[in-house]
């Protein structure tokens, strides 16, 4: 499990993990480094990782586009929930946490993992039984969230003034919405190609 965790951390520096990380990083910043949304992101990512290893869900173009719409809407909801009149009855912190969890889960559908030694072994062994691979893939997915944890901690260390925090939130949210929008209009492959080339040049 430790090897899987370490391999996942190394994979976060590779382009293949960018589409998993970007939405999660956006949510970490949008939720101002709060712990509850971070935990929700981790839970969502682990659940998505289990689904990936179980290899039972086909994520074709249609669902990917829908997921893009969903993530874009959730990011906007997380940013605007405190000021939306019809949501004032709700605790916007709970809304943020819930949206972070969903985004963490959906981002695993966008993920095209680098299959190194450990993840490869998990996937190979899963063919003969998924249950035994759940600890390994959980460790792997938690490894992929280490940059998100770092982002949470950076936000907490900097502890920006409210006005600055608001601007940062809108910039991060804007990036997230653009990425989600690209998927929503069926540009998943182009987005992955662009990110891959951007990250490797």
């Amino acid at each position: 499990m430790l090897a899987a965790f370490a391999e996942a951390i190394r994979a976060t520096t590779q382009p293949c993990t960018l589409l998993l990380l970007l939405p999660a990083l956006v949510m970490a910043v949008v939720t101002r480094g709060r712990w509850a949304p971070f935990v929700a992101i981790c839970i969502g990512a682990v659940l998505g990782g289990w689904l990936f290893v179980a290899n039972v869900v086909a994520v074709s173009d249609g669902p990917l586009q829908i997921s893009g719409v969903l993530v874009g809407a959730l990011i906007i909801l997380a940013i605007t929930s405190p000021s939306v009149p019809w949501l004032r009855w709700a605790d916007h912190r709970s809304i943020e946490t819930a949206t972070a969890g969903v985004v963490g889960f959906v981002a695993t559908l966008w993920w095209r993992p680098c299959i190194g030694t450990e993840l490869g072994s998990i996937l190979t062994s899963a063919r003969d039984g998924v249950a035994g691979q759940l600890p390994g893939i959980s460790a792997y997915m938690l490894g992929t969230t280490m940059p998100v944890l770092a982002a949470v901690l950076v936000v907490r260390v900097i502890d920006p003034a409210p006005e600055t925090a608001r601007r940062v939130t809108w910039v991060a949210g804007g990036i997230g919405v653009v990425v989600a929008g690209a998927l929503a209009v069926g540009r998943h492959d182009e987005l992955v190609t662009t990110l891959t080339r951007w990250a490797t040049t």
Partner: protein
Amino acid sequence: MGRSRAFAAAGLVAVIAVAGAAFVLDGSDDPVEPAAEAEPASASSVPVTTTVSASELPDRGLHPELIDIDGWLQSDVTSLEELEGKVVAVQFWTFGCRNCKATLPHMAELYETYRDQGFEIVGIHAPEFGFEAEVANITEAAAELGVTWPIVLDTNKRTFHSWQEGPTAHWPRIYLLDRNGHIRYDHIGEGRYAETEAAVQALIAEPG
């Protein structure tokens, strides 16, 4: 600095330390397997410490067909059936895939060591991105990466998906076929090079 910020700063240092350790320990937990970026020459120095008998390799049935392929490169062969009688490693790869590239020195070593003993490799090239589908780019990459074995062009990835059970297919993935064309070994991702070589040895030693 407030107490909360101090804790966060300490946590950040810890996360950076853990990440640093993950990179430092890369591959050190498996001394049998060479580092991912190893040169082809270094792979030859790795001893096979795993032994497998052919009876330990379950028969997963006759290999699926090659579907809707766009041809073969670096070979006069035009079907897997023509290779029956040989032990064949079928590897799904694409030249832009980092993990696929990491396996190629080991594949080259297997090819060099066992090709005279009735062993063949077929690399099924299933492109992930558009630029990987251009034949000229594949040929150029194959030369650069030391891929000298036959390559099947699976541009539409129909073979890629039909061979791999479930809705998600992976690169790299290697299947070993016995002399009768039956799948006897399957591994996803990098690694397990010694285990793969031991399986090749076992299948070569198995009577046809």
